[in-house]
């Protein structure tokens, strides 16, 4: 409020009252939005944790046979790769994000004489790559939601620390000034009236 010149008029007071009313109405909305964003971020983080645990479980399950993947006869890396991660746009807590839908793979067909473990490895790699792609999508969602959360928090701070107190101060100051002006006018009028009466008497 410091440095801002207030117009001590009834119009200005009405304008400040309107600002205060809107601010008081908006603040709970932003607070609710903050809560919703935080809760959504937590839910997504929990989902990421769940997926990581699933990846670990799959790795542990494959541990007894993972040695076969270093087979000198087969280069498993040439059998599978990710072509495209499929996503769709959705609104999460009012923010537009990409939701994971699936993965399109490039898979080389196995021949009759391709070792049987290749089938198992491709199956495992598909599952793990899908889970990793889902994590990537979710991490990107968290990034976007956190950006929005920062914005919302800045707005809440603005309302709590600037707009509402400023409007309240302005309304109070204008009210006092208008009251003082009114009293001064009445007093002046009384003085004028008294001096007029004295002039008539004389």
């Amino acid at each position, binding site marked *: 409020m410091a440095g801002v010149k207030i117009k001590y008029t009834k119009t200005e007071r009405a304008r400040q009252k309107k600002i205060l009313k809107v601010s008081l109405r908006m603040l709970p909305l932003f607070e609710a939005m903050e809560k919703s964003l935080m809760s959504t971020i937590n839910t997504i983080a929990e989902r990421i944790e769940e997926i990581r645990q699933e990846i670990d479980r799959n*790795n542990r399950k*494959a*541990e*007894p*046979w*993972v*040695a*076969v*993947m*270093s*087979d*000198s*006869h087969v280069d*498993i*890396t040439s059998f*599978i*790769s990710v072509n495209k991660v499929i996503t769709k746009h959705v609104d999460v807590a009012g923010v537009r994000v990409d939701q994971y839908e699936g993965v399109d793979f490039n898979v080389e067909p*196995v021949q*009759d*004489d391709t*070792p*049987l*473990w290749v*089938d*198992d*490895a491709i199956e*495992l*790699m598909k599952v*793990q*790559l899908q889970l*990793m792609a889902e994590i990537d999508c979710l991490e990107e969602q968290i990034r976007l939601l956190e950006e929005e959360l920062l914005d919302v928090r800045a707005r809440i701070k603005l309302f709590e620390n600037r707009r509402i107190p400023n409007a309240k101060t302005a309304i109070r100051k204008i009210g006092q000034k208008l009251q003082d002006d009114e009293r001064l006018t009445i007093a002046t009028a009384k003085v004028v009236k008294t001096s007029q009466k004295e002039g008539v008497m004389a």
Partner: protein
Amino acid sequence: MSNLVYLMCSLPSLKFGQVPPISMDEFTEESKSQLSAKHFKKLEPVDIYQATDSEGKVSLKSIAVMLDEMKEDMAELRAAKAQRRTPGLARLPLAVVHANPLEREKLIMRWQWEELDTIVSGESFTLTEVMVYKLRLQILNRLNSFNKERGSQVLASVVNPPKKKEE
């Protein structure tokens, strides 16, 4: 004949599951120096992974038969898995059905090894014996390439490749 005898006597004996006592390059060099050009030409295309050479010729009929039968059983295993039924195997041991992928490969290689025993039985200091030696060396090399740490690295390189830096 004397060259074959000399070669077979100079080669270390092989046992299933052991670390290969000689490399494939050393074997090739040794056999090239000991065998006649004609024998070496016959030995060169022998491969545990393919029944025929690049020109489609069969190096050793019994090996080709073994590989074909194995291929048929592998196809049957794949079909049975896709159709969710119990496979009917002609040659491979039934244990391969429920074994994990690593154990399954080992069982198949063990089966190949035993089949090679049958092929080589009664053969002493013949080219067939040298061929079987080469095939066994291939089996041992492959078996020895199975390594948990390296396998995990291969899996990680596919599932979690290093992310490319954005330009």
